[in-house]
């Protein structure tokens, strides 16, 4: 495996040496993403809504997977959660419009409750970003913006229609926006409905039990999603006030032959009657987010604040099944719905304030935030107790530009937080006893974090180096879980003495921008002094764990290193031969290794480690704009692209994972845009997995039960603006 990484780095080096012969010239960075990249000492990637529309995967997280260093833990065809350089769950903070998205991100079958069609811009900060975002951001941040400001005295509407063949998805997203002089509003409604998704096989082997699939459809993975958002406000010369309300509602089934990862016998005839019906097991998720932003600025300083309230409710349904000591049939005395397996409900109140003081070559930024959470549980099974938590922090950072070449950034933050879990006893008796699963527990944590970096630009070269410390408070699941996770047949035991997780990371970046091509290298090395790891032991527990294997939360030292490399060639009108055509060729690669340096799993990697990958993407774009304006119809642009991705075999596993073979996938994209009666219309078509290849994704949730990834998928989208 190392030889690929070596080959890649030599190849990149060769190119750099070659580049030195090219004569010196001023390079103007046009690309927005590149501009952002060159201004922050951390490693940052950004994409806009347009990109997301073109590549739209099943979920926001799946769409972002195209970014080197980002992978996605996908559950079914429409849910996914982001993983940055192998770190996910509560180690990545997702921040939507200045509000940290809080849901049930600790759960492995949880997806992100964000409407991907509403995203205007997504930025990925790789590496510890606790400085501005507090606990949880130690693996990185996915920063999403859904806000844009309509132009003065306009009213507009925007329609998106989309369809996918792999899960017979139909959806649409409609947005209206308008602005008088100072008052504005934006609103959007998205609805999508999809059937069971198709995999390129007629059966899957769930724990060696053969499950036949009708027409290759993964039984009961259908679902629907309905989202809306509205935001309205006032923008003046020196202030802005904005109120946002959004709701994401999804309702979808889980693969019926394996609830979680537990094989189940199902009535296949009932399920196979329709591929669009949603039967048990299924889940219903609602996420409400309301926020109020207030910004004020003058020549001396800029102040911004956000107050937010979020409500997340996630309910999982499956027919009552008795496990262990549970009564065979649900007693009538059971309070609640016997078919509700789990219910989690979360209320979050948060506030953050920031002030920026721009001086001539020096910018000072200070901020603070506070968050309060109340979590309730329900359902017949138990994994985590009810809990309340408080987190608060304050930071000071600065950005100093010495001269054209050198720029320094750094800051310091202090955090304080606490968690209080509530006692829980089983509702049924085990050998005459109502087992105590969780006790009343109270913990507090506090920590200093920092980040410091330098950016050096010299001609075509730009070099960045950043050292950061991130930290994360243990969550309720890690401190106080004590129950069987039937999704994994694991009896998971929290540890109330866990310390907060600390991570130190050194990030480097080298950019070379020339007329013909751009090279970006982003190596990193990181060290955890006490990574919280769920360790599978060889033992079983009968009384508390119904005879399931014991998994303990432990802490260990972890070393991680790796990086991403990208070379982008752009051939366009700067070369007369290309005229109105543009050809982009992008070569990219990702490499990641993680090692546990202590503890029972010393020498092993970390769970859900993405394999090495490399990719080749070519896009041909032709500008069709004509000088003579035709009022009825005038073409704008046409593009076709092919992208090839190769993932290598992943043997870096941790029990209970399986090694995953390497694979190659080819995707096709194309699009055409034109003006019709002065309105812009865009048509995009894509074919994912052109060759209908059967492959497994190491970071996919259903990987453990050998479900291959989606088969050939034809996607079509139509956009028009009014």
């Amino acid at each position, binding site marked *: 495996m190392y030889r690929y990484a070596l080959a890649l780095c030599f190849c990149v080096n060769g190119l750099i040496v070659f580049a030195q012969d090219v004569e010196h010239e001023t390079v103007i960075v046009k690309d927005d993403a590149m501009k952002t990249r060159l201004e922050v000492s951390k490693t940052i990637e950004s994409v806009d809504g347009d990109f997301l529309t073109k590549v739209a995967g099943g979920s926001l997280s799946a769409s972002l997977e195209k970014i080197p260093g980002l992978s996605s833990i996908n559950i079914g065809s429409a849910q996914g959660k982001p993983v940055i350089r192998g770190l996910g769950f509560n180690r990545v903070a997702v921040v939507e419009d200045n509000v940290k998205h809080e849901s049930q991100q600790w759960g492995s079958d949880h997806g992100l409750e964000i409407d991907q069609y509403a995203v205007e811009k997504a930025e990925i900060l790789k590496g510890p970003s606790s400085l501005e975002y507090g606990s949880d951001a130690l693996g990185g941040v996915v920063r999403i913006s859904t806000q844009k400001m309509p132009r003065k005295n306009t009213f507009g509407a925007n329609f998106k229609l989309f369809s996918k063949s792999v899960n017979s998805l139909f959806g649409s997203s409609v947005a209206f926006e308008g602005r008088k002089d100072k008052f504005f509003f934006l609103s959007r409604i998205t609805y999508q409905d999809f059937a069971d998704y198709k995999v390129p096989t007629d059966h899957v082997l769930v724990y060696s039990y053969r499950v036949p699939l009708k027409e290759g459809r993964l039984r009961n993975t259908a679902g629907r999603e309905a989202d809306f958002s509205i935001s309205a406000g006032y923008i003046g010369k020196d202030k802005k006030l904005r109120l946002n309300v959004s709701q994401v509602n999804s309702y979808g089934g889980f693969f019926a032959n394996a609830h979680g990862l537990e094989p189940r016998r199902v009535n296949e005839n009932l399920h196979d009657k329709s591929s669009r019906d949603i039967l048990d097991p299924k889940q219903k998720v609602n996420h409400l987010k309301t926020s109020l932003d207030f910004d004020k600025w003058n020549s001396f300083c800029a102040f911004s604040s956000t107050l937010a309230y979020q409500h997340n409710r996630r309910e999982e349904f499956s027919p009552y099944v008795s496990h262990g000591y549970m009564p*065979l049939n649900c007693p009538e005395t059971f309070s609640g719905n016997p078919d509700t397996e789990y219910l989690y409900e979360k209320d979050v109140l948060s506030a953050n304030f920031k002030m920026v003081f721009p001086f001539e070559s020096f910018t000072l930024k200070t901020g603070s935030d506070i968050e309060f959470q109340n979590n309730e549980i329900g359902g017949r099974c138990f994994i985590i107790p009810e809990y309340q938590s408080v987190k608060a922090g304050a930071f000071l950072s600065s950005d100093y530009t010495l001269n054209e070449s050198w720029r320094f950034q750094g800051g310091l933050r202090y955090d304080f937080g606490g968690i209080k879990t509530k006692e829980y006893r089983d509702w049924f008796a085990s050998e005459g006893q109502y087992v105590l699963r969780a006790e009343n527990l109270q913990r507090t944590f506090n920590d200093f974090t920092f980040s410091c970096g330098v950016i050096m630009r010299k001609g075509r070269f730009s070099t960045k180096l950043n050292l950061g410390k991130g930290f994360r408070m243990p969550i309720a699941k890690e401190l106080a879980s004590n129950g069987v996770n039937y999704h994994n047949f694991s009896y998971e035991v929290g540890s109330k003495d866990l310390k907060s997780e600390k991570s130190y990371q050194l990030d480097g970046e080298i950019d070379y921008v020339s007329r013909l091509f751009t090279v970006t290298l982003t190596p990193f090395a990181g060290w955890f002094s006490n990574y919280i790891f769920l*360790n599978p032991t060889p033992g079983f527990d009968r009384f508390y764990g119904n*005879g399931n*294997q014991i998994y303990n939360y432990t802490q260990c030292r972890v070393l991680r290193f790796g990086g991403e490399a990208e070379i982008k060639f752009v051939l366009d009108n700067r070369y007369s031969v290309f005229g109105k055509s543009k050809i982009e060729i992008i070569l990219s690669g990702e490499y990641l290794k993680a*090692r546990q340096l202590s503890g029972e799993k010393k020498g092993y990697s970390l769970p859900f480690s993405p394999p090495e990958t490399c990719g080749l993407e070519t896009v041909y774009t032709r500008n069709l704009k004509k000088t003579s304006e035709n009022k009825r119809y005038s073409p704008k642009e046409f593009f076709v692209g092919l992208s090839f991705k190769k993932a290598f075999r992943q043997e870096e596993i941790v029990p209970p994972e399986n090694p995953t073979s390497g694979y190659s996938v080819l995707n096709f994209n194309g699009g055409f845009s034109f003006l019709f009666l002065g309105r812009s219309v865009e048509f995009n078509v894509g074919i994912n997995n052109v060759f209908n290849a059967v492959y497994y994704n190491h970071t996919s949730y259903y990987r453990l039960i050998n479900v291959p990834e989606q088969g050939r998928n034809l996607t079509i989208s139509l956009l028009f603006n009014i």
Partner: protein
Amino acid sequence: MKKIIYTLLLSVFLFSFASCNKDDEEVDTQKPEIDITIDGAFPLNGSELCFGEDFTIKMLLKDNQELGSYSIEIHSNFDHHSHSTEESDEHHHEEHEHHHEEGEEGDAFYFSQDFSIPSGQREYLLNQKISIPEKSSDGDEFAAGDYHFMITVTDKAGFSSFKAMEIETKNKD
């Protein structure tokens, strides 16, 4: 000149990353196995157990490095949920029609126990006697009918493998 230094530094940086893990210790990445193809393996799909009589589990447990422990569970299958890992012919296709009336009467039998394996074993011939009582602790008869027999084996690294069989139970005549 400076560029060459950069290039060299870069190569060293990347090279050191790529070659960092030569000193990898060998870690176990293989799951243990449960071999039910040995002579006299018991119970198998369709095997019959009788309340009030002993039976002996016979299977071969194997691991490439070191076995951990194993656990046995027997539970009723009156609701016809299933974890079966073994293909059984007619059982699968009659499913829901094949509802056992006896399951509704008497107490469902439930057995769960875990066992250790002496340390350092790569192979372990399981020859474990299990006693099934004739009557429940309340003195009632157990409900006969469809049951599941599940065995899970772990290795020292924490990998696990499991097999589930669909079995029948009957009351003593």
